[in-house]
Protein backbone atom coordinates (compact mmCIF):
# COMPACT_ATOMS: atom_id res chain seq x y z
CA UNK A 1 0.00 0.00 0.00
CA UNK A 2 1.16 3.44 -0.89
CA UNK A 3 -0.90 6.60 -1.09
CA UNK A 4 -3.91 4.43 -0.38
CA UNK A 5 -3.40 2.27 -3.48
CA UNK A 6 -2.72 -1.44 -3.14
CA UNK A 7 -0.73 -3.40 -5.70
CA UNK A 8 -1.67 -6.63 -7.31
CA UNK A 9 1.23 -9.03 -7.80
CA UNK A 10 -0.80 -11.84 -9.37
CA UNK A 11 0.70 -11.18 -12.81
CA UNK A 12 3.20 -8.77 -14.34
CA UNK A 13 0.47 -7.03 -16.24
CA UNK A 14 -1.80 -6.67 -13.22
CA UNK A 15 1.16 -5.41 -11.20
CA UNK A 16 2.01 -2.78 -13.79
CA UNK A 17 -1.58 -1.61 -14.00
CA UNK A 18 -1.99 -1.49 -10.24
CA UNK A 19 1.11 0.60 -9.59
CA UNK A 20 0.51 3.09 -12.37
CA UNK A 21 -1.71 5.37 -10.24
CA UNK A 22 0.92 5.28 -7.50
CA UNK A 23 3.66 6.27 -9.92
CA UNK A 24 1.45 9.05 -11.24
CA UNK A 25 1.20 10.40 -7.69
CA UNK A 26 4.98 10.54 -7.70
CA UNK A 27 4.94 12.18 -11.09
CA UNK A 28 2.90 15.05 -9.68
CA UNK A 29 5.62 15.65 -7.10
CA UNK A 30 8.24 15.46 -9.87
CA UNK A 31 6.41 18.08 -11.90
CA UNK A 32 5.92 20.34 -8.88
CA UNK A 33 9.60 20.17 -8.05
CA UNK A 34 10.45 20.86 -11.69
CA UNK A 35 8.31 23.95 -11.88
CA UNK A 36 9.43 25.37 -8.55
CA UNK A 37 13.09 24.58 -9.24
CA UNK A 38 12.84 26.15 -12.66
CA UNK A 39 11.23 29.28 -11.27
CA UNK A 40 14.02 29.70 -8.72
CA UNK A 41 16.66 29.05 -11.37
CA UNK A 42 15.11 31.56 -13.76
CA UNK A 43 14.96 34.33 -11.17
CA UNK A 44 18.31 33.62 -9.51
CA UNK A 45 19.97 33.35 -12.90
CA UNK A 46 18.59 36.71 -13.91
CA UNK A 47 19.98 38.27 -10.74
CA UNK A 48 23.39 36.73 -11.47
CA UNK A 49 23.29 37.92 -15.06
CA UNK A 50 22.55 41.47 -13.94
CA UNK A 51 25.19 41.45 -11.18
CA UNK A 52 27.70 40.09 -13.60
CA UNK A 53 27.07 42.96 -15.98
CA UNK A 54 27.58 45.58 -13.28
CA UNK A 55 30.63 47.61 -14.34
CA UNK A 56 32.21 47.25 -10.91
CA UNK A 57 34.69 44.43 -10.40
CA UNK A 58 33.88 44.25 -6.73
CA UNK A 59 30.46 43.01 -7.81
CA UNK A 60 31.02 41.29 -11.13
CA UNK A 61 34.03 39.16 -10.21
CA UNK A 62 32.52 37.50 -7.13
CA UNK A 63 29.41 36.85 -9.22
CA UNK A 64 31.45 35.16 -11.92
CA UNK A 65 33.11 33.03 -9.26
CA UNK A 66 29.82 32.04 -7.64
CA UNK A 67 28.22 31.12 -10.94
CA UNK A 68 31.25 29.04 -11.90
CA UNK A 69 31.19 27.37 -8.50
CA UNK A 70 27.50 26.53 -8.75
CA UNK A 71 28.03 25.13 -12.22
CA UNK A 72 31.04 22.99 -11.40
CA UNK A 73 29.78 21.26 -8.25
CA UNK A 74 27.35 18.33 -8.20
CA UNK A 75 23.68 18.85 -7.52
CA UNK A 76 23.78 16.01 -4.99
CA UNK A 77 26.41 17.71 -2.85
CA UNK A 78 24.68 21.08 -3.09
CA UNK A 79 21.52 19.35 -1.97
CA UNK A 80 23.24 17.67 0.98
CA UNK A 81 24.84 20.96 1.90
CA UNK A 82 21.51 22.74 2.00
CA UNK A 83 19.79 19.85 3.74
CA UNK A 84 22.33 19.30 6.52
CA UNK A 85 24.10 22.64 6.89
CA UNK A 86 21.24 25.14 6.80
CA UNK A 87 19.48 23.63 9.85
CA UNK A 88 22.69 24.09 11.84
CA UNK A 89 22.17 27.80 11.34
CA UNK A 90 18.54 27.62 12.32
CA UNK A 91 17.06 27.49 8.83
CA UNK A 92 14.78 24.47 8.72
CA UNK A 93 13.15 23.96 5.34
CA UNK A 94 10.93 21.04 4.34
CA UNK A 95 12.76 18.48 2.21
CA UNK A 96 10.75 19.32 -0.89
CA UNK A 97 11.58 23.00 -0.62
CA UNK A 98 15.26 22.28 0.05
CA UNK A 99 15.28 20.12 -3.07
CA UNK A 100 13.67 22.80 -5.21
CA UNK A 101 16.17 25.37 -3.93
CA UNK A 102 19.05 23.03 -4.76
CA UNK A 103 17.72 22.57 -8.29
CA UNK A 104 17.32 26.32 -8.56
CA UNK A 105 20.85 26.99 -7.35
CA UNK A 106 22.43 24.44 -9.67
CA UNK A 107 20.54 25.64 -12.71
CA UNK A 108 20.84 29.35 -11.95
CA UNK A 109 24.42 28.98 -13.20
CA UNK A 110 23.10 27.79 -16.53
CA UNK A 111 20.23 30.24 -16.86
CA UNK A 112 22.44 33.23 -16.07
CA UNK A 113 24.58 32.14 -18.99
CA UNK A 114 21.46 31.93 -21.17
CA UNK A 115 20.49 35.52 -20.36
CA UNK A 116 24.02 36.76 -20.92
CA UNK A 117 24.45 34.97 -24.24
CA UNK A 118 20.99 36.04 -25.37
CA UNK A 119 21.70 39.68 -24.71
CA UNK A 120 25.19 39.56 -26.14
CA UNK A 121 23.95 37.94 -29.33
CA UNK A 122 22.02 41.09 -30.14
CA UNK A 123 24.18 42.99 -32.55
CA UNK A 124 26.22 45.74 -30.93
CA UNK A 125 25.17 48.04 -33.76
CA UNK A 126 21.61 47.96 -32.42
CA UNK A 127 22.64 49.72 -29.22
CA UNK A 128 24.81 52.15 -31.15
CA UNK A 129 22.00 52.92 -33.55
CA UNK A 130 19.66 53.62 -30.62
CA UNK A 131 22.19 55.95 -29.08
CA UNK A 132 22.59 57.71 -32.41
CA UNK A 133 18.83 58.20 -32.46
CA UNK A 134 19.07 59.61 -28.95
CA UNK A 135 16.73 57.01 -27.43
CA UNK A 136 16.86 56.87 -23.63
CA UNK A 137 18.79 53.81 -22.31
CA UNK A 138 15.77 52.23 -20.60
CA UNK A 139 13.76 52.54 -23.77
CA UNK A 140 16.63 51.06 -25.77
CA UNK A 141 16.82 48.05 -23.47
CA UNK A 142 13.10 47.36 -23.26
CA UNK A 143 12.03 48.17 -26.79
CA UNK A 144 15.11 47.40 -28.86
CA UNK A 145 17.41 44.91 -27.15
CA UNK A 146 14.99 42.75 -25.17
CA UNK A 147 12.60 41.86 -28.02
CA UNK A 148 15.58 40.64 -30.02
CA UNK A 149 17.06 38.68 -27.12
CA UNK A 150 13.89 36.92 -25.95
CA UNK A 151 13.54 34.58 -28.95
CA UNK A 152 17.03 33.33 -28.17
CA UNK A 153 16.46 33.06 -24.43
CA UNK A 154 13.12 31.24 -24.30
CA UNK A 155 14.06 28.02 -26.12
CA UNK A 156 17.32 27.71 -24.17
CA UNK A 157 15.44 28.13 -20.88
CA UNK A 158 12.95 25.52 -22.07
CA UNK A 159 15.75 23.02 -22.57
CA UNK A 160 16.96 23.60 -19.03
CA UNK A 161 13.44 23.05 -17.76
CA UNK A 162 13.66 19.57 -19.27
CA UNK A 163 17.08 19.03 -17.72
CA UNK A 164 15.71 20.01 -14.32
CA UNK A 165 12.92 17.50 -14.74
CA UNK A 166 15.51 14.78 -15.33
CA UNK A 167 17.43 15.82 -12.22
CA UNK A 168 14.45 15.70 -9.85
CA UNK A 169 15.08 12.02 -8.92
CA UNK A 170 18.22 13.18 -7.10
CA UNK A 171 15.87 14.75 -4.56
CA UNK A 172 14.86 11.27 -3.47
CA UNK A 173 18.02 11.11 -1.33
CA UNK A 174 16.57 13.70 1.04
CA UNK A 175 13.29 11.77 1.31
CA UNK A 176 11.34 13.62 -1.36
CA UNK A 177 8.89 11.05 -2.66
CA UNK A 178 9.04 11.82 -6.37
CA UNK A 179 8.46 9.28 -9.12
CA UNK A 180 11.73 7.35 -8.90
CA UNK A 181 11.50 7.17 -5.13
CA UNK A 182 7.99 5.78 -5.44
CA UNK A 183 9.27 3.09 -7.78
CA UNK A 184 12.13 2.34 -5.39
CA UNK A 185 9.76 1.99 -2.44
CA UNK A 186 7.49 -0.32 -4.43
CA UNK A 187 10.56 -2.33 -5.42
CA UNK A 188 11.81 -2.56 -1.84
CA UNK A 189 8.46 -3.86 -0.68
CA UNK A 190 7.66 -6.26 -3.48
CA UNK A 191 11.20 -7.21 -4.58
CA UNK A 192 10.10 -6.39 -8.09
CA UNK A 193 12.31 -3.63 -9.39
CA UNK A 194 12.17 -4.31 -13.08
CA UNK A 195 8.59 -3.29 -13.73
CA UNK A 196 8.36 -0.11 -11.65
CA UNK A 197 11.78 1.15 -12.78
CA UNK A 198 11.06 0.43 -16.44
CA UNK A 199 7.74 2.21 -16.09
CA UNK A 200 9.45 5.23 -14.60
CA UNK A 201 11.83 5.23 -17.55
CA UNK A 202 8.94 5.07 -19.99
CA UNK A 203 7.01 7.80 -18.18
CA UNK A 204 10.12 9.96 -18.25
CA UNK A 205 10.47 9.40 -21.95
CA UNK A 206 6.88 10.51 -22.45
CA UNK A 207 7.36 13.58 -20.24
CA UNK A 208 10.55 14.73 -21.95
CA UNK A 209 9.23 14.12 -25.46
CA UNK A 210 6.08 16.03 -24.59
CA UNK A 211 8.06 18.83 -22.97
CA UNK A 212 10.44 19.21 -25.90
CA UNK A 213 7.47 19.26 -28.23
CA UNK A 214 5.96 22.07 -26.15
CA UNK A 215 9.23 23.98 -26.12
CA UNK A 216 9.48 23.66 -29.89
CA UNK A 217 5.90 24.82 -30.36
CA UNK A 218 6.50 27.81 -28.11
CA UNK A 219 9.69 28.52 -29.99
CA UNK A 220 7.84 28.55 -33.31
CA UNK A 221 5.15 30.83 -31.95
CA UNK A 222 7.55 33.49 -30.76
CA UNK A 223 7.61 36.58 -32.94
CA UNK A 224 10.99 36.16 -34.59
CA UNK A 225 10.17 37.90 -37.82
CA UNK A 226 13.11 39.86 -39.10
CA UNK A 227 15.30 38.99 -36.12
CA UNK A 228 18.50 37.39 -37.39
CA UNK A 229 18.79 34.27 -35.23
CA UNK A 230 21.85 32.17 -35.73
Amino acid at each position, binding site marked *: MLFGYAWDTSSNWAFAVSILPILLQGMIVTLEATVLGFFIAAVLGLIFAVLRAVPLRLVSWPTIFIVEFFRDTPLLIQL*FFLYFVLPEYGLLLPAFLTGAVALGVQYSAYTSEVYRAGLEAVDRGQGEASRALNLPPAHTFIKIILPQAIPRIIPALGNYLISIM*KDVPVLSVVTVVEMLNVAKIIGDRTFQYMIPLTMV*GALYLIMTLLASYLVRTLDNRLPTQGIPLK
Partner: protein
Amino acid sequence: MWDYLPALMQGAWITLELTFWSTLAGAFCSFFFGLGRGSRNLLLKSVSVAYIEVFRGTSLLVQMFWIFFALPLMGVRMSPMTAGILALSLNIGAYGAEVVRGAIQSVIRSQYEAAKALNFTPRQALWFIALPQALPEMLPPFGNLIIQNLKDTALVSLITLSDLAFRAESLRNLTQDSTTIYTLVLFMYFGMALMLTAIMKLLERRVGRWRGTGAR
Protein backbone atom coordinates in the same frame (compact mmCIF):
# COMPACT_ATOMS: atom_id res chain seq x y z
CA MET B 1 39.37 19.57 9.17
CA TRP B 2 42.68 17.87 8.36
CA ASP B 3 41.36 14.66 9.88
CA TYR B 4 38.82 14.34 7.10
CA LEU B 5 41.23 14.78 4.25
CA PRO B 6 42.70 11.26 3.93
CA ALA B 7 39.27 9.65 3.69
CA LEU B 8 37.99 12.31 1.32
CA MET B 9 41.10 12.04 -0.85
CA GLN B 10 40.52 8.33 -1.24
CA GLY B 11 36.99 9.11 -2.31
CA ALA B 12 38.17 11.78 -4.72
CA TRP B 13 40.48 9.23 -6.31
CA ILE B 14 37.51 6.90 -6.94
CA THR B 15 35.61 9.87 -8.38
CA LEU B 16 38.46 10.64 -10.78
CA GLU B 17 38.75 7.00 -11.78
CA LEU B 18 35.03 6.85 -12.48
CA THR B 19 35.19 10.09 -14.46
CA PHE B 20 38.12 8.84 -16.48
CA TRP B 21 36.69 5.48 -17.45
CA SER B 22 33.17 6.67 -18.07
CA THR B 23 34.43 9.57 -20.17
CA LEU B 24 36.52 7.16 -22.22
CA ALA B 25 33.68 4.69 -22.71
CA GLY B 26 31.29 7.60 -23.22
CA ALA B 27 33.48 9.02 -25.97
CA PHE B 28 33.38 5.64 -27.67
CA CYS B 29 29.56 5.61 -27.44
CA SER B 30 29.47 9.18 -28.75
CA PHE B 31 31.37 8.37 -31.89
CA PHE B 32 29.82 4.97 -32.46
CA PHE B 33 26.21 6.11 -32.15
CA GLY B 34 26.81 9.63 -33.44
CA LEU B 35 28.23 8.20 -36.67
CA GLY B 36 25.70 5.37 -36.57
CA ARG B 37 22.90 7.85 -36.62
CA GLY B 38 24.13 9.24 -39.92
CA SER B 39 24.76 5.79 -41.36
CA ARG B 40 22.99 4.44 -44.42
CA ASN B 41 22.60 1.07 -42.68
CA LEU B 42 19.01 1.14 -41.50
CA LEU B 43 19.52 -1.20 -38.53
CA LEU B 44 22.50 0.72 -37.19
CA LYS B 45 20.67 3.97 -37.75
CA SER B 46 17.53 2.96 -35.86
CA VAL B 47 19.49 1.41 -33.00
CA SER B 48 21.47 4.66 -32.70
CA VAL B 49 18.36 6.84 -32.76
CA ALA B 50 16.66 4.67 -30.14
CA TYR B 51 19.72 4.70 -27.90
CA ILE B 52 20.12 8.48 -28.13
CA GLU B 53 16.43 9.18 -27.51
CA VAL B 54 16.08 6.78 -24.58
CA PHE B 55 19.20 7.86 -22.73
CA ARG B 56 18.68 11.56 -23.31
CA GLY B 57 14.99 11.31 -22.61
CA THR B 58 15.21 9.65 -19.21
CA SER B 59 16.90 10.52 -15.98
CA LEU B 60 20.45 9.33 -15.24
CA LEU B 61 19.44 8.18 -11.79
CA VAL B 62 16.61 6.12 -13.27
CA GLN B 63 19.10 4.53 -15.67
CA MET B 64 21.51 3.86 -12.84
CA PHE B 65 18.86 2.27 -10.62
CA TRP B 66 17.61 0.24 -13.53
CA ILE B 67 21.07 -1.15 -14.21
CA PHE B 68 21.84 -1.68 -10.53
CA PHE B 69 18.52 -2.96 -9.17
CA ALA B 70 16.55 -4.27 -12.13
CA LEU B 71 19.19 -5.96 -14.29
CA PRO B 72 20.41 -8.36 -11.57
CA LEU B 73 16.86 -9.77 -11.36
CA MET B 74 17.30 -10.80 -14.98
CA GLY B 75 20.49 -12.58 -14.02
CA VAL B 76 22.89 -9.85 -15.13
CA ARG B 77 25.17 -9.29 -12.16
CA MET B 78 27.89 -6.70 -12.05
CA SER B 79 29.94 -4.87 -9.46
CA PRO B 80 28.79 -1.40 -8.38
CA MET B 81 31.85 0.02 -10.15
CA THR B 82 30.93 -1.63 -13.44
CA ALA B 83 27.29 -0.64 -13.08
CA GLY B 84 28.29 2.93 -12.28
CA ILE B 85 30.66 3.25 -15.22
CA LEU B 86 28.13 1.62 -17.53
CA ALA B 87 25.32 3.98 -16.52
CA LEU B 88 27.51 7.09 -16.63
CA SER B 89 29.07 6.32 -19.98
CA LEU B 90 25.83 5.28 -21.66
CA ASN B 91 24.21 8.46 -20.40
CA ILE B 92 26.98 10.87 -21.36
CA GLY B 93 27.51 8.98 -24.63
CA ALA B 94 23.97 9.78 -25.75
CA TYR B 95 24.59 13.50 -25.31
CA GLY B 96 28.01 13.12 -26.90
CA ALA B 97 26.51 11.34 -29.91
CA GLU B 98 24.44 14.43 -30.64
CA VAL B 99 27.59 16.54 -30.38
CA VAL B 100 29.41 14.29 -32.85
CA ARG B 101 26.48 14.33 -35.26
CA GLY B 102 26.10 18.11 -35.05
CA ALA B 103 29.80 18.73 -35.59
CA ILE B 104 29.92 16.47 -38.63
CA GLN B 105 26.85 18.16 -40.05
CA SER B 106 28.56 21.51 -39.62
CA VAL B 107 31.27 20.54 -42.10
CA ILE B 108 30.26 22.43 -45.22
CA ARG B 109 28.98 20.55 -48.24
CA SER B 110 31.66 21.87 -50.53
CA GLN B 111 34.25 19.89 -48.59
CA TYR B 112 32.38 16.70 -49.47
CA GLU B 113 32.20 17.87 -53.08
CA ALA B 114 35.95 18.42 -53.17
CA ALA B 115 36.44 14.96 -51.68
CA LYS B 116 34.14 13.48 -54.30
CA ALA B 117 35.94 15.29 -57.11
CA LEU B 118 39.15 13.68 -55.88
CA ASN B 119 37.34 10.34 -55.93
CA PHE B 120 37.43 9.60 -52.22
CA THR B 121 34.89 6.98 -51.18
CA PRO B 122 32.12 8.29 -48.89
CA ARG B 123 33.79 6.50 -46.02
CA GLN B 124 37.18 8.04 -46.76
CA ALA B 125 35.55 11.45 -47.04
CA LEU B 126 34.02 10.93 -43.60
CA TRP B 127 37.19 9.73 -41.91
CA PHE B 128 39.87 11.83 -43.57
CA ILE B 129 38.03 15.00 -44.53
CA ALA B 130 34.92 15.53 -42.40
CA LEU B 131 35.91 14.05 -39.03
CA PRO B 132 39.24 15.88 -38.64
CA GLN B 133 37.46 19.16 -39.39
CA ALA B 134 34.60 18.34 -37.04
CA LEU B 135 36.88 17.42 -34.15
CA PRO B 136 37.77 20.97 -33.05
CA GLU B 137 34.05 21.79 -33.17
CA MET B 138 33.34 18.93 -30.78
CA LEU B 139 35.91 19.78 -28.14
CA PRO B 140 34.18 22.68 -26.34
CA PRO B 141 30.86 20.82 -25.96
CA PHE B 142 32.79 17.69 -25.01
CA GLY B 143 34.51 19.76 -22.31
CA ASN B 144 31.12 20.68 -20.89
CA LEU B 145 30.03 17.06 -20.99
CA ILE B 146 33.13 15.93 -19.11
CA ILE B 147 32.36 18.41 -16.32
CA GLN B 148 28.78 17.16 -16.38
CA ASN B 149 30.11 13.62 -16.11
CA LEU B 150 32.33 14.52 -13.17
CA LYS B 151 29.32 15.95 -11.36
CA ASP B 152 27.19 12.96 -12.29
CA THR B 153 29.66 10.56 -10.71
CA ALA B 154 28.41 11.79 -7.33
CA LEU B 155 25.26 9.78 -7.97
CA VAL B 156 27.13 6.48 -7.85
CA SER B 157 27.35 6.96 -4.09
CA LEU B 158 23.67 6.02 -4.15
CA ILE B 159 24.51 2.58 -5.49
CA THR B 160 27.03 2.00 -2.68
CA LEU B 161 30.23 3.05 -4.47
CA SER B 162 32.60 4.76 -2.05
CA ASP B 163 33.40 7.83 -4.11
CA LEU B 164 33.88 11.35 -2.75
CA ALA B 165 30.17 11.93 -2.20
CA PHE B 166 29.83 8.61 -0.39
CA ARG B 167 32.80 9.33 1.91
CA ALA B 168 31.35 12.70 2.72
CA GLU B 169 28.06 11.15 3.71
CA SER B 170 29.69 8.49 5.92
CA LEU B 171 31.92 11.11 7.58
CA ARG B 172 28.88 13.24 8.26
CA ASN B 173 27.11 10.28 9.83
CA LEU B 174 30.12 9.73 12.02
CA THR B 175 30.92 13.27 13.10
CA GLN B 176 27.79 15.36 12.39
CA ASP B 177 30.19 18.09 11.24
CA SER B 178 28.24 18.83 8.06
CA THR B 179 29.45 22.37 7.45
CA THR B 180 33.14 21.55 7.30
CA ILE B 181 32.73 18.31 5.41
CA TYR B 182 30.39 19.56 2.73
CA THR B 183 32.24 22.83 2.22
CA LEU B 184 35.43 20.86 1.79
CA VAL B 185 33.80 18.43 -0.62
CA LEU B 186 32.24 21.19 -2.71
CA PHE B 187 35.66 22.78 -3.14
CA MET B 188 37.22 19.44 -4.00
CA TYR B 189 34.71 18.92 -6.80
CA PHE B 190 35.27 22.50 -7.90
CA GLY B 191 39.02 21.93 -8.00
CA MET B 192 38.67 18.77 -10.04
CA ALA B 193 36.36 20.56 -12.47
CA LEU B 194 38.85 23.40 -12.92
CA MET B 195 41.58 20.86 -13.54
CA LEU B 196 39.53 19.10 -16.22
CA THR B 197 38.63 22.44 -17.82
CA ALA B 198 42.32 23.35 -18.02
CA ILE B 199 43.16 20.02 -19.66
CA MET B 200 40.40 20.50 -22.22
CA LYS B 201 41.59 24.03 -23.02
CA LEU B 202 45.08 22.69 -23.68
CA LEU B 203 43.64 20.00 -25.92
CA GLU B 204 41.53 22.53 -27.81
CA ARG B 205 44.58 24.62 -28.54
CA ARG B 206 46.50 21.64 -29.89
CA VAL B 207 43.74 20.15 -32.03
CA GLY B 208 42.56 23.40 -33.58
CA ARG B 209 46.00 24.61 -34.58
CA TRP B 210 45.25 24.75 -38.30
CA ARG B 211 42.27 27.02 -37.70
CA GLY B 212 43.75 29.92 -35.78
CA THR B 213 46.57 30.61 -38.20
CA GLY B 214 45.20 33.69 -39.87
CA ALA B 215 48.51 35.38 -40.65
CA ARG B 216 49.46 35.55 -44.30
